[in-house]
Structure formats: structure tokens, C-alpha cells
């Protein structure tokens, strides 16, 4: 046999070698990493009919949200693990610097006790909500059909833990400043019983039990997260500033930097999804189904924010603007 071609070394992985552009560090370490798309009958190397194989066949590969090559997705920020920590260590140094400074200046002692009461009811319980975002991102990540999408969701999961951690930290500080306001004790009760949270609770409980990857990512990234970020970060932050709580305003600003990054990859994802005929209508239908829940959540929550008369309308409009900006 004289026609045997001996394979020669190439400049990069063979799956990237055909392209003209030199691959970036991001592409070398992030693309095409899942191996569960090798065999349509059996994502995992076990009995094709076993539970988890059926789960992935149904919820990942048979979703109605179609694209010929999800692996072509690229995070516009090209975040890799190494740069994530660089970036977030810097951000955490900033935030903990704020905590330190404001604590030294006895910021909490200057807060109006009535505002402290509002924080106990409207801020501290948010750790449950942020944790729900953490869980939802973990799910969407593990069922995403491309590693580049998975990674965006896992970094988003870690960012949600970051928000939760800030909230827990501030809850403890506020407990020290206002020992009789129930900080560190009453959050679960507020989250489970107070009407201001029930909209968000219903929204995330339902989002967390949406198993189809396509619907889950649309619900989380285009409905749930925008609603949470516009109401519980932006509008809460504005209300905080109005009530002399500069620290919370600065904190939510810092967290919104993460949210902006999440929105950039979401925009790239939506643009890619819209390349396939039928996805527009499908995504619009999912949004139409989820948005009323989110609107009710925003209404209930923002309606209770002190000194924030237009908060609900502003937050709801902002979620619409985000989607409209993406062609949805």
C-alpha cells in the first residue's frame, strides 16, 4: 500500500487546525470539550437506555432549540479559568475593601433603623434567590451541548455564589449592628412567607425544575436573571442610595459588573440561536410563557422598596429592553 498518508504534527489540535486563524488560549482550552455527543444513541459509555443516557438524549440533544453546531459558540469575553480568578480576585479585593472601609467608618450605625428593617426583609433573604441562580446555572451548564456554553454558565454559577457570599457577609455585619432586627435568623421565613418574595420564589422554583436545556437557558438567561438583576440589584441599590446606604449601592454596582458579563455571552448565544429558522418563534413563545411570572415577581418585590415609586415599572421595562436589544 503506497497511498498511506503518515499524519504529521500540526500547529494546534487537529480539530482547530483547519481554520486559518491562530487559536487563542481560550479556544485551545475551551472548545469542543464535551464528549457526550459522540454517539447519539448513548451519550455515556454505558447501557444506552440507562437513566442518565435517556436524560441527556431527551433534555440536551432533543430540545426544540436547534443549531447545527453549538460548538461554534464563543464567549465574547473569552474567559478562561485563569483569567476568571485574576478578574474576580481583583473584584473581591475591591468589595472587601469597601466592607473594611465602611466598617471602620461605622457605616451601619448611621443607618436609619427603619431602613435596617427593610434590609432584613428585602435584602438579607436574597441569599436564597442568589443561591437559586447558582443552582440553575449549574444545571444549565451541565446539560449544555457545547463546552463554551457550559463554561459561561459555570462561571455564572460561581458569580452567583459570590453574590450569595456578599449577602451572607453583610447579613452578619448587620446582625451585629442591629441585634434585634432578626438578621441571620428570619431570612428563611421572609423567603418562604413574605409576599414580597413569593413571586421570585415561584419563578425560581419553576425555573429550577425546567429540564429541557433550550427552555431552561432561555428562561434563566433571558427572563429570570434580568428580573433578579434589575429588581434585586439595580432597584434595590437605587433605593439603598436614597436611604443613605451607600455601601449597598456600591455593592450592587459591583455585582452588576458580573451581570453585564453574563449578558454579553447571552447576547452572543441569542444571536447564534437566531441563525436557525424557527428558533425566534420558539424563544418568543418560551419568553411569553415565563415573562408574566417574572413581571409579577418584580411587581411584588419592587412595590415594597422604600422610596422607589417607579421601581417596578423601571425594572420591568429594563427586562424588556434587554430582550428587545437582542431581537426578542
Amino acid at each position, binding site marked *: 500500500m503506497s497511498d*498511506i*498518508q*503518515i*499524519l504529521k*504534527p*500540526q500547529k*494546534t*489540535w*487537529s*480539530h482547530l487546525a483547519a481554520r486559518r486563524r491562530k487559536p487563542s*488560549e481560550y479556544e*485551545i*482550552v*475551551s472548545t469542543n*470539550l*464535551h*464528549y*457526550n455527543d459522540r454517539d447519539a444513541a*448513548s451519550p*455515556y*459509555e*454505558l*447501557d*444506552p437506555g*440507562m437513566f*442518565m443516557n435517556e436524560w441527556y438524549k431527551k433534555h440536551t440533544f432533543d430540545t426544540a432549540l436547534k443549531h447545527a453546531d453549538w460548538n461554534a459558540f464563543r464567549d465574547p469575553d473569552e474567559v478562561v*479559568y*485563569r483569567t*476568571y*480568578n485574576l478578574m*474576580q*480576585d481583583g473584584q*473581591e479585593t475591591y468589595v472587601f475593601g469597601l466592607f*473594611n472601609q465602611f*466598617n471602620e467608618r461605622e457605616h451601619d450605625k448611621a443607618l436609619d433603623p427603619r431602613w435596617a428593617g427593610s434590609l432584613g426583609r428585602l435584602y438579607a433573604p436574597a*441569599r436564597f434567590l442568589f*443561591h437559586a441562580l*447558582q*443552582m440553575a446555572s*449549574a*444545571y444549565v*451548564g*451541565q446539560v449544555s451541548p457545547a463546552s463554551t456554553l*457550559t*463554561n459561561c454558565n*459555570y462561571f455564572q*454559577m*460561581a458569580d452567583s*455564589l459570590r453574590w*450569595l*457570599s456578599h449577602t*451572607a*457577609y453583610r447579613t*452578619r455585619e448587620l446582625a451585629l449592628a442591629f441585634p434585634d432586627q432578626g438578621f441571620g435568623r428570619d431570612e*428563611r421565613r421572609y*423567603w*418562604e412567607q413574605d409576599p414580597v418574595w413569593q413571586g421570585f*420564589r415561584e419563578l425560581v*422554583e*419553576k425555573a429550577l425544575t425546567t429540564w429541557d436545556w433550550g427552555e431552561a437557558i432561555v428562561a434563566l438567561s433571558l427572563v429570570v436573571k434580568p428580573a433578579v438583576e434589575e429588581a434585586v440589584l439595580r432597584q434595590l441599590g437605587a433605593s439603598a442610595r436614597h436611604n443613605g446606604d451607600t455601601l449597598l449601592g456600591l455593592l450592587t454596582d459591583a455585582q452588576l459588573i458580573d451581570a453585564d458579563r453574563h449578558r454579553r455571552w447571552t447576547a452572543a448565544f441569542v444571536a447564534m440561536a437566531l441563525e436557525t429558522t424557527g428558533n425566534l418563534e420558539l424563544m418568543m413563545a418560551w419568553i411569553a410563557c415565563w415573562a408574566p411570572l417574572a413581571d409579577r415577581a418584580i411587581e411584588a418585590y419592587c412595590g415594597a422598596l422604600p422610596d422607589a415609586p417607579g421601581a417596578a415599572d423601571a425594572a420591568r421595562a429594563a427586562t424588556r429592553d434587554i430582550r428587545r436589544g437582542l431581537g426578542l
Partner: protein
Amino acid sequence: MAVLNRMDWYDLARSTNWTPKYVAEDELFPPKLSGEFGLPLTAWEEYDEPYKQTYPEYVKVQREKDAGAYSVKAALERSRIFENADPGWKSVMKAHYGAIARGEYAAASAEARMMRFSKAPGMRNMATLGCMDEIRHGQMQLYFPHEHVAKDRQMDWAFKAYDTNEWAMIAARHFFDDIMMTRDAISVSIMLTFSFETGFTNMQFLGLAADAAEAGDHTFANLISSIQTDESRHAQIGGPALKVLIANGQKQEAQKRVDIALWGAWKLFSVLTGPIMDYYTPLEHRKQSFKEFMEEWIVAQFERALTDMGLDLPWYWDIFLKDLSETHHGMHMGSYYWRPTVWWNPSAGITPAERDWLEEKYPGWNDTWGQCWDVIIDNVVDGNMAKAYPETLPYVCNMCQLPILGTPGKGWNVKDYPLEYQGRLYHFGSEVDRWVFEQEPERYAGHLSIVDRFLAGMIQPMNLEGALAYMNIGPGECGDDAHNYAWAEVYRALRAERKAV
């Protein structure tokens, strides 16, 4: 400084369980994904992770770790360690990266399953960090070998291996898919983090680092030992889950999962780590034998920890101890004899000096594996290469997917462990492999081993060329002797000496 200590606010960050109202608890935490142990949310709130870490601590420490690993890599890039390395050592790196890198990335999704579906809030936060760790391990172990990809086509397999039906990769996927990709959150914590990561990853990431340091490959030693610092944290996810299960009368279920995972890990390491430690690593750089590393990490450290948790030694403990001196010699002989089917160049590792070392570490080696190697050596020395390559397939185990083998020569004990199940005849490499199958046949029964696929006509043409094509291993990639049979010269000289006498 006016910042709180970690423990002032740590508990609040893991007080995140709530009672769902708009969906049922079993919908929020489906038993098949959360673990079918019948324990409610409140039972899992007792879970207390012993190795605590917060988000700000995490990003700081991890940034520092990466700064270390990447700067060592950058500093040593010009020292041409790869180019100058012994071919046996290059094979160590190729086997390692191919079998490990994307498996670690996949583990991120196993961690994400614990994050989403565990009912223990502490576990959910630790698994969030564990998931991030595994992204690190996947990405670093792709970035580091990538610098060698232009020098050696086989290095492409650091990425490509997981996409192929190469037989060792079928085995690797079968194991990892079984213990981490297809299990519920609690089982993942027991099988992946407790059984695999507190046990076996130490073998690959520290034992091998010791050899790498001896071999002068400081980039690799530094990389893998740095990876293990993450493992040592998130591997602690499983321990407290075991304690919760034991406290709630679920010891048998916990023990079974440990026993299944430990055995599968052992089989995979017998083919991956055993040969590279005892045959590929140049003799002068071997810190300890594979068996000695196993004794240090698995018997003395892991099994001791397991008994401290309140679990028992696996029921197959005696079989395991016996196999520690045997199985990997067969795995090495198999991957050497069938070397065109692997993506690295196996080092034979059987010069007289190496055989003396093997005989010292494994008394009786010459009378057993040595007997088979004598025949292989004669064929190579005589130039009878047709006989030094295979013409059929080894029969592989329907559980571990590795050749069914045993001790040859004077200690011949090779045995099949068959099982007829629903009209199909399955073959297993040991009593334990068969036992694993019998625990949950529905997980495994419909899977086809590479031999099953061959017999089903899925591999065409039905010869070595067809098999190589099926395994996606091309000319320029498939393995051959690491040293191009240079070792045969030693035996030629010995023959000449004997004739002269």
C-alpha cells in the same frame, strides 16, 4: 482591619435550604438525581464539610496557584525538557494527558450535579468550587501539552483521545461515566470525590510527580502536584456525606458505592499508571514501584481514612492485595504487544537491569511475565517482527473494558469470569468486575465492549486496519516501541557473548 472572620458568616452562606412550595420537594430534587436514599432536606442540613473555603478565599488562592504553575511553565519553556526527555517519559506524558485532561473537564459537570441536586447546602457550595477546580484541571492539562503538539503528532491525543473509540479510552470513559457522569449527586460525592479523589488521584498526581521530579520534568511535576492541592480540598465533599448516610442507616449502600468505585479505579490505574511507573519511567528515575506507591497512597492512607469514617474494608480486599503485584504487569504486556492500538509509544522496559529491578520489586517476575517477554525478546532479536505484533483481539472485560488477563508462565492463573444474563454471555476479568455488573445490570447490560462491536460487524474490515480505523488512530499516531527496539542490542550482545564462550 475591620473585616469579619470566615467563620462569622460562613454558616449563613450555607443556610440556603428552603421548603419548596410551587413545586414538590421530589420535583426540586428528583430522587434519581439527588440520591434515592429517602432522606429529607433536614437530614442533609446536618452535612458539615470539614475543609471550608469561601468564595473570596477561593479566587485569591487559586489565582496564586495558577501564577505559580504558569510561571514555572514559562520559565522552563526554553529548556527543551520535552525534546530531550527519554522517549519513555514522553510516553508517560502522552498517556497521562490523553486519558486525563478531558476527563477532568467532564468532572466539572459531575461537580455541577452535586451543586444542583444535593440536598446538603454545604455540599452545594463546595461543589461549586469543585466544579471550578475541574475546569482548571481540564484547561491547564490542555494548555500545557498544547505547546508540544507541533513537535509530535501523538500529542494531538491530549485533546483527541476522548472523541475516539480507542480501546483504552472506551475503558476510561466507561469508568468515569459510571462513577461520575451518570450517578446521582450523593453517589457522585461518594464515588468520585471520596473514593477516587481521596484515593487514586494521589497516585497519578503525586506519585507520578515524584517520578517527574526525578526525571527533571519540573513543569509537569509542578503542574500535577498543584492540581492535587485542589483535589485535596474538594475530595472532602464525600466524607461528610458518608457520615450522614451512616447516621441514617444507609451504611450498606454507601459501602457498596465505595467498593464499586474503588475497584473500577484500581482497574483503570492498573493499565494507565502501573505501566508508566514500572516500565516507562527510566529506571534511574523511578522513585518507588507502582506497588509501593499503591501501598503508600491506597492501603496506608486511603483505606485508613475509610475505616476512620466507619466503613469496612471492601469485601474483595484479599483479591485486591493479590492483584496489586500482578494485574499491571499484564496490562503493560497487553498494551505493549498491541502497541499499534495506543497513541503513545510503550517502553518495553525489560532490559536485564530493568528485569533485575522488577524481580526485586515483584519476586517471581522472571518466572511469570519474564517467560512471555523471553519469547517477545527472541522475536525482536531475530528480526521476526511478524510474531512481535498481534493478529487477533484480546478478549476484554464487559465491566472494566480492559483485557481479561492473569499471571502467565510458571504461575499461570488466567481465568474468565463469565455470566449469562438475559440470553447474552458476558465475560469479566475478575470476580469483582462480575459482582459490580450484578449490582445493577441495567446500567451495563446493553453496552457493547470493543470485542462485542467487532463480533457485531461494527468494525470493518475485520482486521487490524479496520480496528485502527475504528479507533480513529492513524499512521503517524499509532504506537510502536518507544526506543525503536534499541534494547534488543543488549540481548544481541549477550547472545554473542554466550556463543563466544
